């Protein structure tokens, strides 16, 4: 079990057997079920709440409103602006107003319908540009501008020979983790509460919960329950405070588990945005300047919007050398559903825009789009538009070359592609007997074409983003590692508060301990708040930061073991641990670890702090604001039925530098899965919001890529090694989600000749 091996997941056997306990599977004798009363209006004054009918309904134990919030009725990741339960105003459709606890979930649901809330409906502000107008109603005391990032880099009046402009619109994407928001709160009878919960960051939940519940942090203990995916959706609180309130009020354990429609209003989404770009280049295709205005709709509450807009702005130009940049990134409050973190975190929206612009520029110059990108590709030592110098590998050109050099996929079976990229069925290849596979055309099993009207398109995109938290945030993680003898054999327990969201962090932690401590029996114990913060399973940071903490704690344990061996055995220096034994520099067994340890428990806790980052200058956006950068490129090949508007993504090719593949199979899984989420936004995924109301809050109406939509992903994984990170690794999870969609859209443009300035297409 070592770093670099495709070790099987330790939680895998339980997951395939159906015995792994997710947060929605929790149950305890005598528990009640919680339900949420939600605002049916995107913007309304709450005049009164009458709970009498609900309280009188069978099986109901409690109905709670904002008056029952024991502490401060505010929470939020960056700005505490969101009420646990709405007070006098509901600011979005589906905002929580009251809570019910009952014996049976159906009793709770029906009682929630019996809670009479009197609203005075107001005109919702649902357009981000309108929210910016001087005369717009202020949705929060601070005004509607949540944050305005200004980046002023180089010559602000630079001019260029060739100029292209574009405006792009990005729809609202849902993380759609399959596991619903759910958890079980158990009162301890002494005023405190134990919450079993699926979250991305236990300690930030505790911080917000203790404030809202009016309890000291030690009275709010969190234990991680199985997480059915996250992708950003579990960064903010959903039902955590609600379940705790009901449990503390009733003195009974309370379970809450959202239905899928409720899940759509129960977590934040990827920001929709409007992005206006102007690129200037010389006649050789070298970028001279980029000007951009990015407006993201943050919705009703702040969530992580202020960090998302920083990312959208910092990485607005893509991984290119841009000597002069004028960027304005603005995120605003509206009465739309709140938006926040989703995989890619601001770098997804801007990638559609900067990559469309690069293709437009290539067309204006009569240049190959990949050649134009290569000419401007960022490399080590270059300076970003934020003034930060890129240290360590930045293989943008190599990634582009790798995807370009991949063999082009074959035409649909029985068909040919002519020089104009039209798909033709070969003579005699009609029908099933002729070798024609109709299901491989756009339209699939619907058999909508035999190839007529079908054109093939190829498109490229490259993107990048930061790894870890930025702008001076004190990003760190904590790990406790214990070594002891169990059943006559040495064993290691790794304990962190880090969230295993599916990415394979439990495997990686075990691999690191196995590598550092040379012990075969390594167990990663369940995450909880008895150990220090691990930070969030976000920003592609956990393998780096929590991995770094586990490595540091293991090194401390190892140092003590080696010191013990040297003291007790008067052994020479150069000792290390291998295969459960202390061995000499020449590999000779000096002493079995179990013998050396005896009853001793070696117990070490360490924090890992990566190098410091700095806040962006408020006027110029200049700073060393980011810890590490991660890059990926995609090539997409699509077939489009240009008569029916049907689209089939034939193949995605991708290349990514991961520094060091700690678990190669898991790296592939991140790249394939991340590419699928990117493809989803490009071609089908959008939360349809009309006048502040979500129109498609179900998996029937919100389309997710199925196995029929997802093409094969061919990949090159580079391991270039970052000299400053543990094992040289680089965050992996997000880059695939950034460039896959823009490559698909570029391919659709190539096939159809259409501008396509809005996604999903």
């Amino acid at each position, binding site marked *: 079990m070592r770093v670099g091996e495709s070790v*099987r997941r330790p*939680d*895998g*056997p339980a*997951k*395939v*057997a*159906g*015995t792994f306990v*997710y947060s929605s*599977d929790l149950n305890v004798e005598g528990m009640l079920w919680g339900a949420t009363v939600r605002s049916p209006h995107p913007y309304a004054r709450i005049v009164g709440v009458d709970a009498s009918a609900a309280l009188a*309904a*069978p*099986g109901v134990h409690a109905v709670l409103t904002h008056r029952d919030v024991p502490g401060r009725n505010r929470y939020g990741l960056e700005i505490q602006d969101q009420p646990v339960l709405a007070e006098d105003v509901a600011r979005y459709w589906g905002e929580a107003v009251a809570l019910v606890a009952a*014996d*049976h979930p*159906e*009793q709770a649901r029906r009682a929630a319908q019996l809670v009479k809330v009197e609203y005075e409906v107001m005109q919702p502000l649902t357009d981000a540009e309108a929210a910016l107008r001087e005369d717009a109603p202020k949705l929060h005391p601070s005004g509607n501008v949540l944050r305005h990032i200004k980046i002023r880099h180089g010559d602000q009046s630079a001019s260029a020979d060739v100029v292209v402009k574009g405006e792009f619109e990005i729809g609202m994407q849902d993380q*759609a*983790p*399959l*596991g*619903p928001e759910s958890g079980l709160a158990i009162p301890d009878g002494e005023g405190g509460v134990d919450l079993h919960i699926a979250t991305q960051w236990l300690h930030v939940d505790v911080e917000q919960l203790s404030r809202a519940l009016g309890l000291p942090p030690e009275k709010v203990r969190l234990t991680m329950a199985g997480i*059915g*995916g996250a*992708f950003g959706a579990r960064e903010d609180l959903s039902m955590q405070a609600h379940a705790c309130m009901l449990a503390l009020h009733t003195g009974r354990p309370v379970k809450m*588990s959202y239905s*899928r429609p409720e899940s759509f209003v129960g977590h934040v989404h990827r920001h929709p945005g409007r992005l206006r770009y102007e690129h200037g280049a010389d006649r050789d295709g070298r970028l001279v300047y980029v000007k951009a205005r990015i407006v993201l709709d943050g919705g009703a509450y702040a969530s992580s919007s202020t960090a998302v807009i920083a990312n959208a702005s910092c990485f607005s130009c893509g991984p290119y050398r841009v000597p002069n940049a004028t960027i304005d990134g603005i995120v605003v409050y509206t009465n739309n559903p709140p938006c926040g973190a989703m995989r890619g975190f601001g770098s997804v929206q801007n990638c559609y825009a900067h990559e469309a612009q690069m293709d437009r520029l290539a067309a204006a110059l009569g240049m190959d789009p990949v050649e134009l990108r290569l000419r401007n590709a960022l490399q080590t030592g270059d300076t970003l538009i934020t003034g930060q110098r890129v240290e360590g590998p930045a293989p943008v050109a190599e990634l582009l070359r790798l995807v370009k050099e*991949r063999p082009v996929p074959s035409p649909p079976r029985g068909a040919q592609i002519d020089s104009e990229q039209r798909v033709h069925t070969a003579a005699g290849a009609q029908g099933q007997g002729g070798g024609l596979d109709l*299901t*491989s055309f756009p339209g699939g*099993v619907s058999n909508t074409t035999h190839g007529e009207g079908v054109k093939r398109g190829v498109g490229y995109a490259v993107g990048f983003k930061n790894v870890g938290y930025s702008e001076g945030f004190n990003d760190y993680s904590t790990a406790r590692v214990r070594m002891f003898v169990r059943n006559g054999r040495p064993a290691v327990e790794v304990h962190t508060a880090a969230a295993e*969201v*599916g990415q394979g962090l439990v495997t990686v932690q075990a691999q690191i301990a196995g590598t550092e401590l040379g012990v075969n029996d390594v167990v990663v114990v369940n995450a909880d708040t008895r150990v220090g913060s691990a930070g969030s399973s976000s920003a592609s940071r956990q393998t780096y930061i929590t991995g770094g903490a586990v490595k540091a704690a293991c090194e401390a344990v190892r140092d003590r073991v080696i010191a013990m061996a040297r003291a007790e055995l008067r052994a020479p220096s150069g000792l290390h641990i291998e295969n459960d034994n202390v061995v000499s520099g020449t590999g000779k067994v000096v002493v079995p670890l179990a013998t050396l340890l005896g009853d001793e428990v070696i117990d070490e806790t360490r924090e890992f702090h990566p190098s410091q980052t700095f806040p962006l200058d408020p006027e110029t956006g200049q700073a060393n604001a980011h810890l590490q950068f991660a890059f990926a490129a995609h090539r997409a090949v699509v077939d489009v039925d240009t008569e029916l508007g049907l689209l089939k993504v034939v193949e995605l090719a991708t290349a990514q530098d991961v520094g060091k*593949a700690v678990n190669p*199979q*898991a790296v*592939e*899984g991140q790249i*394939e*899965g*991340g590419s*699928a989420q990117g493809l989803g936004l490009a071609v089908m995924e959008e939360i349809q919001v009309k006048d502040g109301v979500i129109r498609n809050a*179900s*998996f*029937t109406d919100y389309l*997710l890529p*199925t*196995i*029929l939509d*997802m093409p*094969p*992903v*061919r*990949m*090159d*994984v580079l*391991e270039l090694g970052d000299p400053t990170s543990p*094992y*040289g690794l680089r965050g992996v999870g997000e880059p695939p989600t950034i460039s896959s969609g823009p490559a698909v859209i570029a391919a659709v443009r190539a096939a159809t000749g259409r501008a396509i300035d809005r996604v999903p297409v």
Partner: protein
Amino acid sequence: MGLARLPGRLGVKIACTVNGVAREAEGVWEGESLLYVLRERFGLYGSKNACEQGECGSCSVFLDGVLACACLVLGGQADGRAIVTVEGLARPQELHPVQQAFLEAGAVQCGFCTPGLVVATHDLLQRVRRPSEAQIREALAGNICRCTGYAKIIDAVNLAAGLVERSPRTRAAGSEFVGKGQ
């Protein structure tokens, strides 16, 4: 039908066989799905509650041998029937080959879709011993996975079907690792 008919009152009584074991539930509200009955009354949480609308396949079970979404079947309809859930596929302490294949192929990430996919794959391989890729895609089109992008799920089905040699490291076709530095 009113709230008086909720649990503990006049609900329905169900007797069925789940994974070969006779089970009974009393006081089941008429609106309860088989999924709810399996999970909350029989404690079999392996069938998952992702959409509860028949769109994602996470709650796939066999109902009298026929693949079904347990969320779309009323608890009352299960009376007198034989149900097999993901928990019933393997003998204790031993994984079914389909489960083993999902594990080895790296087809499990968060794992919330996995029980449904395991059941659906089991169904496919009962009908088609050596499915083509197109057959795999068609058979699993009703199972949504948000984590994997499906590549390793296809690998897992192939592995389970014995079409692919077992190797310690299964990889998407055409993938390469170019090790440099370090």
